[in-house]
C-alpha cells in the first residue's frame, strides 16, 4: 500500500493523515500497558509520575514495590494458589476438551451443533451469571471455599477454548492417516499417540494456553467461590484496588505483562509450526 509516485496533494495528505490516525489508535492500545511499567518503579507510594521520575533522577526509582511483593505472604500465597488452580484446571480442561474435540470432528457425531453449543456455553454465558449459578450450587454440595470447587469451575470455563482450538486443527486433518495406521497394524491407542497427537499438538497446546490464561486471569468466580485461603493473584489485585491502593499492584501488573509477552511469543511460534505442518505456508 505504498504511496504511488503519481499521487497528488490530496492523496498524499490522505495517506499520511490515515497513517497518523492509525498511529493514534495503536498508541491508545499500547500506552496503558507501557505506562504501568515505569510507574511500578516509583519510590513514592503513588500511582503517578513524580517530578524526580520525569527528570530521570535515579533516586526517584526503586524496587521497593517488588520487594514488598516478594516479602508479603498474602501475595506469595496468592501466586502459589494461582499456579495450583491454573495448572490443575488446565490439565483437566485439556484432556476433556481434546477428547470431546476428537469426537465432535467425526462426521458420524449425532446432534453435532447442539452438542457444540452446549459444550462451549461457558464461554458465552456472562461470567457473573456463571459465578452466581456456581456459587449457589457449589455451596449446596460443600464445594465452596475449597480448591477443588475453584478448579472444577475454572476447568468448565477453560474447556470451550480447548474444544475450539483443537476442532480448528482437526479441520485440516487427513483421516486417511488414521486408516493407514490401523491398516499397518497399530491399535487405536498407538494410532492416537503416534499419529494423531503429534499432528494436533499445536492446537492442543494453544488450547491449553487459553485454558491456563482463562483460569490465571479469572476473578469473578473466585470472588464468589474462594475463601481467604484460596485467593489468587487477580483476587488479591481486586482487593488491592478496592481497599488499599499501593504500587505493589503495579509491580505485580508489570510481572503479569511480562508473562503475557512470553505467552504471546509461544503462541506465535506454535501457529507457525502448525501452519508449516499442515502445509498451509
Amino acid at each position, binding site marked *: 500500500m505504498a504511496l504511488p509516485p503519481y499521487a497528488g496533494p490530496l492523496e498524499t495528505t490522505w495517506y499520511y493523515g490515515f497513517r497518523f490516525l492509525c498511529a493514534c489508535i495503536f498508541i491508545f492500545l499500547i500506552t496503558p500497558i507501557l505506562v504501568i511499567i515505569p510507574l511500578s518503579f516509583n519510590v513514592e507510594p503513588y500511582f503517578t509520575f513524580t517530578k524526580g521520575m520525569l527528570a530521570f533522577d535515579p533516586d526517584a526509582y526503586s524496587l521497593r514495590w517488588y520487594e514488598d511483593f516478594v516479602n508479603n505472604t498474602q501475595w506469595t500465597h496468592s501466586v502459589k494458589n494461582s499456579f495450583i488452580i491454573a495448572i490443575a484446571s488446565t490439565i483437566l480442561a485439556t484432556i476433556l476438551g481434546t477428547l470431546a474435540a476428537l*469426537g465432535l470432528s467425526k462426521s458420524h457425531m449425532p446432534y453435532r451443533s447442539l452438542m457444540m453449543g452446549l*459444550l462451549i456455553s461457558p464461554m458465552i454465558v456472562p461470567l457473573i451469571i456463571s459465578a*452466581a449459578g456456581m456459587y449457589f450450587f457449589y455451596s449446596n454440595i460443600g464445594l465452596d471455599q475449597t480448591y477443588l470447587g475453584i478448579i472444577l469451575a475454572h476447568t468448565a470455563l477453560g474447556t470451550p477454548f480447548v474444544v475450539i482450538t483443537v476442532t480448528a486443527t482437526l479441520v485440516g486433518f487427513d483421516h486417511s492417516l488414521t486408516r493407514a495406521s490401523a491398516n499397518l497394524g497399530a491399535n487405536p491407542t498407538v494410532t492416537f499417540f503416534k499419529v494423531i497427537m503429534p499432528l494436533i499438538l499445536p492446537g492442543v497446546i494453544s488450547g491449553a494456553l487459553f485454558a491456563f490464561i482463562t483460569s490465571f*486471569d479469572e*476473578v469473578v468466580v473466585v470472588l464468589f467461590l474462594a475463601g481467604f485461603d484460596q485467593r489468587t493473584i487477580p483476587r488479591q489485585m481486586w482487593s488491592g484496588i478496592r481497599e488499599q491502593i499501593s504500587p505493589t499492584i503495579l509491580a505485580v*501488573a508489570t510481572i503479569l*505483562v511480562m508473562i503475557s509477552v512470553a505467552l504471546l511469543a509461544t503462541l506465535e511460534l506454535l501457529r507457525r509450526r502448525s501452519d508449516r505442518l499442515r502445509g498451509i505456508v
Partner: protein
Amino acid sequence: MANENTGGELVLAADGTPLKASLNKAMRKNRIRALLLVTPLFVFILFSFLIPIVDMTFRSVDNWHVGTLMPKTTAALADWDGKALPDEPVFAALVEDLQVGAKAREIGKVGTRLNYEKSGLRSMITSSGRKALKVKEGPYKEKVLKMHKKWKELSTWTVIKRNTAPFTIGYYLNAVDMKYDDNGEIVRQNENRRIYGKLFLRTFAISLAITVICVILAYPISYLLATLPLRYSNLLMIFVLLPFWTSLLVRTTAWIAMLQSQGVLNDLFVFFGLVSDDNRLQLIHNMTGTIIAMTHILLPFMVLPLYSVMKTIPPSYMRAALSLGANPLVAFVRVYMPQTLSGIGAGSILVFILSIGYYITPALVGGTDGTLISNQIAYHMQSSLNWGLAGALGALLLFSVLALYLLYNKIVGIDNMRLG
C-alpha cells in the same frame, strides 16, 4: 439402494450378512465411538456448569418460604376469599406456625420474603414471632391483631395468600420495575423506584456506545494491518495482541493510573495548559471511565474478526473499481465496505455480548453511573442477599445474551470462531 441396482438381490458383505446391515452396524459403531469421546466433557459441563445455571434460574421463580415455613397457615388460607380479614381458624394456624418458626429461628426468612412485596412485613413477622411464643390459648384473632397493626390491613393477607403458591413471578416483576398493588393487580413501580429498567437501558446504551466506538477505532487499523506487507503487519499486530493477552485486572489498573485526577492523562492536560491544575477532569468512577476502559479491553475482539475478513478481500477489486472510473471514496463505500460487513457484524455482536455481561471493569472504574446490570446482580448476591431477584436479573441478562449468540451463530457460525 444397493438391492435396487441389482434387481432385488441382496448384496452380501464378506461375512455373509447383507451389506446394508453391515454398513449400518459399522456406522452405529462409529457414532457410538464419537459419542463416547464427547461424553466425559458433556457430563462434566452438565454438572459443573449447566445444572448450576438452571438451578440459579429456578431460584428466580422459587417461592418456598411461606409454603414450607408456614404450612398450617398456607392450608388454612386455601379457601379464603380475600374480601375481608380471615377468620379465627386461620389466626390459630398462624400462631402455631409463628411459634414453630420462632423456636427454630426460621421465621425471619418468611419476613424477608414478604418484605420484598410489602415493606414493613419483616418487622411484623419477627416481632409477632416473639410475641406468639407467649400466646397459650385463644381467641387468637384478637391477640394477633394486637401484635402488629399491619395484621389489620387486608393487603397484608393478600400478600401472604399470594405467596403460599410454590412459584412466583414476583422477582421478575421486580426486575422489570413492576409490582403487585394492594389489590393484587400488576402495576408499574412508583416513579422513584424504577431502577432496573433504567439500568437495563443504561447497560444496553453503554454496550452500544462501546460497540460503535470499537467499530470506528478498529476499522482503520484492521484495514492498515490487512493491506500492509506481512512483515510490517505482523509487527503491528503485537499492538493488538499484547493488550488481548494481558490480564484484565492489569489493564483496569493501568486505566486507573491513566485516568485518575492525579493520573497520567490529567497531568498531560495540565502540562499542556488544557485544564488548570485545580480543575482536573473527572475521568474515572463515572460512565466515561467505564466506556474508555472497556473500549480498550474489547477493541481486540473487534480488530481480529475484521482483520481476518479484510485479509480475504483481493486488492484487485478496488483497483478494478478505480480503473472503471469510480473515485476512491465511491469505490471504497460501494466496493470495499460491503465486503467487510460480515466482519463488522461478527465483531459487533461479540463486543456487544461481552460488554453487556461485564462486571469487573465497571465495578472498579464505574463509580455509580458507570455500573451495569452485572454489578446489580453481584450486589443482590453478596450484599442485599435477595437471591431471587439476583436470579431474575441474571435470567433476563442470560436470555438477551443467548438471543444475541444465536444471531452470532447465524452470521458467523460457531465453527468459524477464531481465537488469537
